[in-house]
Each structure stands twice: as structure tokens, then as C-alpha cells.
């Protein structure tokens, strides 16, 4: 048995009062792909962070090739051969690809100038090893998601990493791109690397990994080879019990009437900062749940902001219940019955340093009966802890999302738009939010859900559009197979390069 490349010995790590990893032990060997799976909030990313030197363990030891990782810094872990490919890419948008790959380990010539030629040679070799190419002279801001991920991996390889950690690498890839990524990962493992992939997708683990570890609530609950296990066993380990029944989608009311409609809406892009929207049209009738699927970065943010009134449209109309709101600001649109829950709850949803109370009443125009209103919202959605004087920062991600959803849905609405409604949210909170979405539709609101989670959309919606490169390229019933969706996403996707 080869000695493990990485050994985690009863490690624990907490953040404030939240224990993210509890007494976890794990051995990882070279030449194999190790999957780390669990639901949101289980501790996977923290565990990976411990191996990568992002934070030191509060208890226990992290051993790389038998030696403790001390000091626990990313730079030191990198020197010991650990390469971390982050979920949210750690790239400098304003730099070119080659500058990003070089950063932190820059080759210099005799005059102490940056030696771009040497860096390029290193990058070329890494691209050959990986089996993927990317334009090193393009600005990162202009690259697509797949190419950015390639750069992240190149950076890691160029430093000679032999322990490669990938954190949710396929979250932003089409199914085809994901397959290509795993092919490249297999090549790295065959060349002797120890590869760890964090994911919450069972399919990936079963199809591509050699070993699997399941985490639940910070603990390692199961470790075995993939050959020894199957999907139901893994699901039980992830959930801890029978999974709760999925939320019931309300009956399809058909295409009668229009709660929210977009008619030939176009928004100019700014190349790097903003994707353009081209001639987007669709109708959400009252009582219907319509989904928009797509890889992030294909115009979803711009679409949601345009509907909300935060981004002016260049042409076309937005209508709420048949009335045009295109020239109106955010406030008047809300008054006409439209409410939007944005994707980034920390930027566009919450005042983290304000109390839960203040966050729940943000945007309310009346000043009376606020205490009752806050109690009602907290109770309906089961927001914990139950003290409204606490700052919003003290809540978990799931409770924070419940807060913004409660604020949005606790009113008579005609049209609701929710963007990434359960991102980074634990299963219980996700169920509560899905339940609220269905209840809103049953009460007659037209609901638009924009999500990168295809499974969520297929469970909730009556109809799912696909957005790619700022256009709605297809529309399918929810039970359409995933591959069909994947092809549509890729067909107009922002970039066709990189690993994907």
C-alpha cells in the first residue's frame, strides 16, 4: 500500500460558533481520483481548504507526504506540491492568461525583468500534459468559464503540483465540458498525481472517481472505493436518512394571461463587464413556474437586473400584468406587483451588519405593525436563530436565503423572479424555499426561476428555457433529458475552448 500523499488526522475547524469540520480523518494516495461528496454545508470545502493551507486546523494534524503542513499558508502548501483549483476562480481579470499563470512564481531573466518566454514554455508543457489549450495572451476578463478553469489548472501544474484539489469544478460547465475535464483529470492521476474532487453530484463520483468519501454535518461518515458502493447507499450516507419527498409542483394552469412578459428586450454589453441580451422574449402566465437554465455568465445577471429595473434596456418592453414598466424605476415596479430576489444575497439582498429585523423590513413603505410583520416572516419560513435583533451576518447561508425569500414572498405579488434561489443552501432550507415558490404560484403569481441547478428547475418548473450568450435558445418541458439541455447550453455558449 503506497504511503498516503495526504493524511488528515482527526482534524477539526470552526468559524466563529459554527463547527465546519468535526474530528475528520482521511488518507489520500497518489494515482487515484478521490471524490469528496456531501450536501451544501457538510464541510467539504473547508476540508479541502485544510489540505490546501487556506486555514489551519483547530485540532488534529494535516500531513503532506508524512510531514505536517506547518505553517498552514497557501504559499507553503504550494511549495509542498499542493495545487488548489478554486470554485470561484482566483484569477486577476485585468491580466492576461500568461500573467495569471506566472503570478507568484514568476521566472525572471538576468536583468530582473519578467521572462515571458520561459513562462510561456512552462505553460505550453502544462497544456500538453493536460490535453487542453487556452489563449495565453487574451485578457482573462474576455475568457469563458471553461478557459478560466483551464488557466487555474495550468497555474497549479506549472508549479509542479502533485496533489491537485478541485473544488466543485463542474458547477459552471456543461455536461460535455465536464466530461472533458474528467478526462484531463484522469490523465493527471495516471501520471501519478493525487487528485481530490469536491462535488455534490452523485453521477460524477460514480462515473469518474476511484474512491469516495461522504461528509455530513462536518463529519466523515463513509470512505470506500466507488466499486464497493452504489447510488442509493451514497444517497443514504449523504442525507443520513431517507431523503425527504420532493416538493409538489402545482398543477400547470396553461398559457392564459400574462403576469410577466418580456418583448424583444435587448441590452448592450460592455465586452468584459457585461454580457449583452439579444431580443429576449417570453411570457410567464399567472400561476405558472417558468425556469431559465444556463451556465452562469450567459446573461442571467443582466436579465434579472433588467427586469428588476436596475439595468436600463436599450430596446424592447417589460410588462407586468400587461402594463409596461420598462421606463419605471425599481420602486414603481414593486408597486405594480413585481418582486425580484437576486442571486448574490450578500451584495443585493442583505445588510450583513444590520439586524434581522431591519433586513426583513427593508423596502417596506409603511411604518406600522413592523414587529408583527417581522414575526410572521420569521415564523412562516422557520428562520433561526429566532432573535430578530441579531445581525444578519450571524445567520447561516440557508437562513439568510430564507430571509430574503421571506421578505420577497410575504406580500401579494403578481410576478416573482428568483435568481439562484437555493445556491449554497442546505437541503432543509432549500425545501422550504421551493415550498414557498410553489405556494406563490398556487396563489396566482407568475414565477420565473433563473438557476444553474438543472435538477432544481426540472423539479419545480412547468417549462424551462435555456439561455446562452444572451439569447433564449430553446424551451423544453421539464422532463426532457439533461443531455438535451446540455447541448442547448453549449450550442450558443460564451466560449467553446478550454477543458470544456
Amino acid at each position, binding site marked *: 500500500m503506497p504511503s498516503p500523499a495526504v493524511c488528515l488526522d482527526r482534524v477539526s475547524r470552526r468559524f466563529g460558533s459554527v463547527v465546519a469540520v468535526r474530528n475528520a480523518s482521511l488518507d489520500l494516495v497518489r494515482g487515484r481520483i478521490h471524490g469528496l461528496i456531501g450536501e451544501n454545508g457538510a464541510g467539504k470545502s473547508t476540508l479541502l481548504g485544510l489540505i490546501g493551507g487556506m486555514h489551519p486546523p483547530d485540532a488534529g494534524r494535516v500531513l503532506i507526504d508524512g510531514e505536517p503542513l506547518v505553517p498552514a499558508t497557501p504559499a507553503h502548501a504550494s511549495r509542498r506540491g499542493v495545487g488548489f483549483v478554486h470554485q470561484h476562480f482566483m484569477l486577476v481579470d485585468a491580466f492576461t492568461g500568461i500573467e495569471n499563470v506566472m503570478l507568484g512564481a514568476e521566472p525572471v531573466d538576468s536583468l530582473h525583468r519578467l521572462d515571458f518566454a520561459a513562462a510561456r514554455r512552462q505553460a505550453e508543457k502544462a497544456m500538453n500534459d493536460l490535453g487542453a489549450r487556452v489563449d495565453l495572451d487574451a485578457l482573462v476578463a474576455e475568457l469563458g468559464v471553461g478557459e478560466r478553469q483551464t488557466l487555474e489548472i495550468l497555474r497549479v501544474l506549472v508549479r509542479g503540483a502533485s496533489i491537485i484539489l478541485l473544488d*466543485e469544478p463542474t458547477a459552471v460547465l456543461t455536461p460535455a465540458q465536464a466530461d472533458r475535464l474528467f478526462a484531463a483529470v484522469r490523465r493527471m492521476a495516471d501520471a501519478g498525481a493525487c487528485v481530490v474532487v469536491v462535488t455534490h453530484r452523485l453521477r460524477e463520483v460514480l462515473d469518474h472517481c476511484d474512491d469516495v468519501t461522504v461528509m455530513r454535518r462536518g463529519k466523515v461518515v463513509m470512505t470506500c472505493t466507488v466499486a464497493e458502493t452504489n447510488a442509493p447507499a451514497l444517497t443514504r450516507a449523504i442525507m443520513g436518512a431517507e431523503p425527504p419527498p420532493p416538493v409538489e409542483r402545482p398543477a400547470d394552469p396553461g398559457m392564459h394571461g400574462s403576469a410577466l412578459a418580456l418583448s424583444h428586450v435587448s441590452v448592450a454589453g460592455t465586452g468584459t463587464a457585461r454580457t449583452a441580451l439579444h431580443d429576449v422574449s417570453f411570457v410567464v402566465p399567472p400561476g405558472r413556474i417558468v425556469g431559465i437554465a444556463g451556465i452562469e455568465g450567459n446573461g442571467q445577471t443582466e436579465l434579472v437586473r433588467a427586469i428588476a429595473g436596475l439595468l436600463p434596456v436599450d430596446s424592447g418592453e417589460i410588462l407586468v400584468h400587461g402594463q409596461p414598466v420598462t421606463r419605471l424605476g425599481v420602486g414603481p415596479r414593486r408597486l405594480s406587483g413585481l418582486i425580484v430576489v437576486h442571486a448574490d444575497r450578500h451584495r443585493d439582498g442583505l445588510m450583513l451588519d444590520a439586524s434581522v429585523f*431591519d433586513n426583513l423590513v427593508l423596502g417596506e413603505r409603511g*411604518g406600522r405593525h413592523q414587529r408583527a410583520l417581522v414575526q410572521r416572516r420569521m415564523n412562516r419560513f422557520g428562520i433561526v436563530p429566532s432573535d430578530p435583533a441579531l445581525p444578519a451576518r450571524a445567520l447561516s447561508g440557508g437562513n439568510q436565503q430564507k430571509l430574503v425569500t421571506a421578505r420577497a414572498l410575504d406580500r401579494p405579488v403578481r410576478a416573482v423572479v428568483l435568481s439562484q434561489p437555493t445556491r449554497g443552501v442546505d437541503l432543509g432550507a432549500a425545501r422550504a424555499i421551493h415550498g414557498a415558490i410553489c405556494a406563490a404560484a398556487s396563489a396566482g403569481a407568475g414565477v420565473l426561476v433563473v438557476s444553474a441547478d438543472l435538477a432544481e428547475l426540472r423539479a419545480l418548473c412547468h417549462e424551462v428555457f435555456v439561455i446562452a450568450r444572451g439569447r433564449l435558445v430553446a424551451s423544453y418541458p421539464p422532463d426532457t433529458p439533461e443531455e438535451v439541455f446540455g447541448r442547448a447550453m453549449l450550442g450558443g455558449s460564451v466560449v467553446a475552448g478550454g477543458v470544456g
Partner: protein
Amino acid sequence: MTRTIGQRAAGLLPPWTAVAAAILVLNLLSWSFGQAPAATLSTAIAGSWGTMYGVGQVLFKATPLLFAGIAVDVALRAGMFNIGVEGQMAVGSVVAAVVATVVPVALPAPVAISIVLLTAAVAGAIWAAIPAVMRVLLGAHEVITTIMLNRIADALIAMLITSALALPGTVRTADMPANTLLPRLQVWIHGFVGSAASVAFPLAVVVLVTVHAWLKLTRSGRETVWVGLNADACAAEGVPVGWRRWMALTLSGAVAGLAASGTVMGYKGYYEMGLGAGAGFGGIAVAFLGRGHPVGLLLAALLFGTLAQAGLAINAQVPREAMGVLEAVVIIATALATAWSPAPASRTTGAPEAEP
């Protein structure tokens, strides 16, 4: 989750640090002028809070600092840095002094005074509205524009004074009629006789309470604070962010316009060039030391007023520059202590976004 005693004490660390730093620096400065440190503290206390006259002087010196502190604080709540208090104060005072001379002498004092105060506030508000509009509509950062407007105000006022307003051979305006002057506190409290303390100080306290009641109890005030906490979230929920920011900075200017009322209307009875210099940065020090709490602001203003008066008591030559150094040290010490002492809840979770 209520705060423990330990957490409360830690939250007060910044003010205590600042006070300690201020006392230390004052000692050092006085020592450099040849005063023994040991004697300094007792002289300081005796000269400031030791007599009613001293107390009166402390209140007099604290008045512009309190107004300035309220002004800086209210802008800061909305995330705006008002460095232009000095210019707004000057503009407000000049306009008040000029308007006072045209107010009919027969008007009863409360009416005349109200008119003059209102004019001062409006003038200061207008001077702050310019950078406010530039920030909200054009995105020009108000730190630079307010500072530039300070210098423009200096130049404009100098031009006006030398060309039109000054009494010949002086750099001051004509005397204001009696019915526009703020009565001294000595009228009611005999102990204050001889000191320059006037109704301006209680007026400042009233403004303090009013502004903070507005911030805490009204929707527009609370929204102003929320805009300072997260303007993006407010915009997404339909809160009029630009409007709230503009209002905060303009209101700040209005309060700043009143800052010299104690000196112009309560003491000298005219406007003189250079009046109130230094109150702008003093207000910043007060606002940071007070940490947004009305009682904190009041105590901070009294602290600096005490230091100014005590400085004089120690050595009549302790120059205004020493006060400037003191204020800078207080701001830095407070900012450092704030960065070190965890705010009550901001460090609680800090977990990576629910993806551990």
C-alpha cells in the same frame, strides 16, 4: 445573544484608547513647552472644570465641535465623507452675519434669531449640495470635491470681505443688531459670568437629539443608515439610494452651517475671516470618537472642548497646532482600536458562504 460584560468593555476600547492617547499627547506637548507633566493634569482640570467660568469656556469651545461632529456623523451614516465642514461653516456664518444686518431691528429676538439661524443652515446646505449632486449624479468622489470647495469658499469669502463687506481697515463684517444675537448662558446661570458660553450649546444638543431621533425612528432616517450599510441591497429593494445620499450630505451641510453660531451670534456678534478654522477636522475626530452614538458624540465634543480649554490653562501659548496634532492622534487611535476590537456581531460566523 446579548453581549457579555467583556464584550461591552471591548466595544468601548476605542474611546478609552483615544482618551488615553489624547491625554498622553497633551502631556508630551505641554512638557515640550516646559511644563512638568505631574503638574499638568491638575492645572488642566482646575483650569477647565474647576471653575464655572472654566466650564463655560469648555461649553463654548465644545459647541462648534459638537455641530461639526453631528454634521460629519450624519453624512458618514450614509457612507459619505464630508470633509467640507469648514467651508460650509464659513459660508453659513458669513451669510448669517450679512442677513442679520438687514433684519428689522423691531422684530422680537426669537424670530430674528430663528431667521438668521435658518439662513445659516440653508447656506451651509447649499454649499454641501454641490458636491452631493456631483457625487450622486456624476460619481465624483466627495472627499476631493468638498476639500476643493473649502478652498473655494475661503477665496470667495476673502473676495467678498475685502471688496464689499468689511469694515474699513478690518477683516470683519459689521456688528449684528442686538435682536439677532444669542443670549449668553450667564443670563440664566449666574456662575457662567464672563464666559462666552451661550444658548448655542443647548441648541447644539437639541440638534443632536433631533438628528438622531430622525435617524433612528423615521423611515427616511433608517433608510439613510441602511444605504450606508449596503447600498446595493437597498437599491434592489427600491430604496431611493441617490436621494438618501444627497439628503444626508446636504443635511450635514445644514448642520455645519450652524457650527459657528456660538462664536458669531453668541460671542463676537460679527463674522471675522478665519473664524472657526480647525473645526472641520475637529468634527471628524468627534464623529469617529463618538462612534455614531449621540451620547458618544456629546462626550467627545466635551472632551475636545476640555482639551482646548485645558491647553490654554496649562500654557497660554499652546498653539492651535497642538490641538490639530491631538485630533489626528485621536482619530488614528480610535480607528486602530476599532479595527482591533471586534464589533459585537461582525466576527460571529465568518464561515465561507454556506459551502463548508
